[in-house]
């Protein structure tokens, strides 16, 4: 008396993992690098303003220099905030229990 051993059925795929992360063709990296580029442009403008104020340009007042510096500050903080949010989301995913 013999019983034949039925072969195991192949494991059916549960689903497919697709490459994701893009919404409307823009991903976080793209907006982060744009924010960084903006911040860099504003930093350049702030240092130009400080330089022309120091060299005695009559059209460049104190408040223009301070405002340029403040704009650069906000832009840098915007870029940093984007980065922090992205890193936070990544960490959250990496902490998933399996």
């Amino acid at each position: 008396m013999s019983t034949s051993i039925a072969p195991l059925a192949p494991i059916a795929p549960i689903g497919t993992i697709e490459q994701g992360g893009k919404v409307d063709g823009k991903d976080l990296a793209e907006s982060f690098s744009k924010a960084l580029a903006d911040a860099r442009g504003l930093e350049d403008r702030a240092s130009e303003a400080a330089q022309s104020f120091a060299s005695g340009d009559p059209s460049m007042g104190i408040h223009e220099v301070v405002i340029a510096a403040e704009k650069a500050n906000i832009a840098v903080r915007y870029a940093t905030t984007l980065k922090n949010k992205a890193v936070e989301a990544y960490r959250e995913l990496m902490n998933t229990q399996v």
Partner: protein
Amino acid sequence: MATMDFFTAMEVSASGLAAERTRMNVAASNLANAQTTQAAGGGPYKRKDVVLQSVDVPGAAGTQFAQAVRGVAVSQISQDAAPPRLEYDPGHPQANAQGYVAYPNVNPVEEMVDMITASRAYEAGITTMSTAVNMAERALGIGK
């Protein structure tokens, strides 16, 4: 940069600050020359005044309210057409045939009022600016 729309408020305030700075410079010029009997172009110094004009904000171009949100700029510095103040001083080198000297049409009290106006308007501009910066900072702090 539409992502940084708080900058529009900052640019509008900055244009106001620049205009008030010019008003301050003009008031300083008027006060300094309150006794100047010999100005460029002959005759006594004539009181100057700023004429303000609303202008486009560079950062707001292309945004929804570009036509409504306006900055300010000094369009010209005008001369007060009021007649000069005549004082009798025959020994003065600029005295006319009747012995009168033409002094500038500058009233120091009026200039002090202009200066206080400029100072208060400048403060208001700084407050607007600080509020815009605070709003941007609060926005960056969402979720903290």
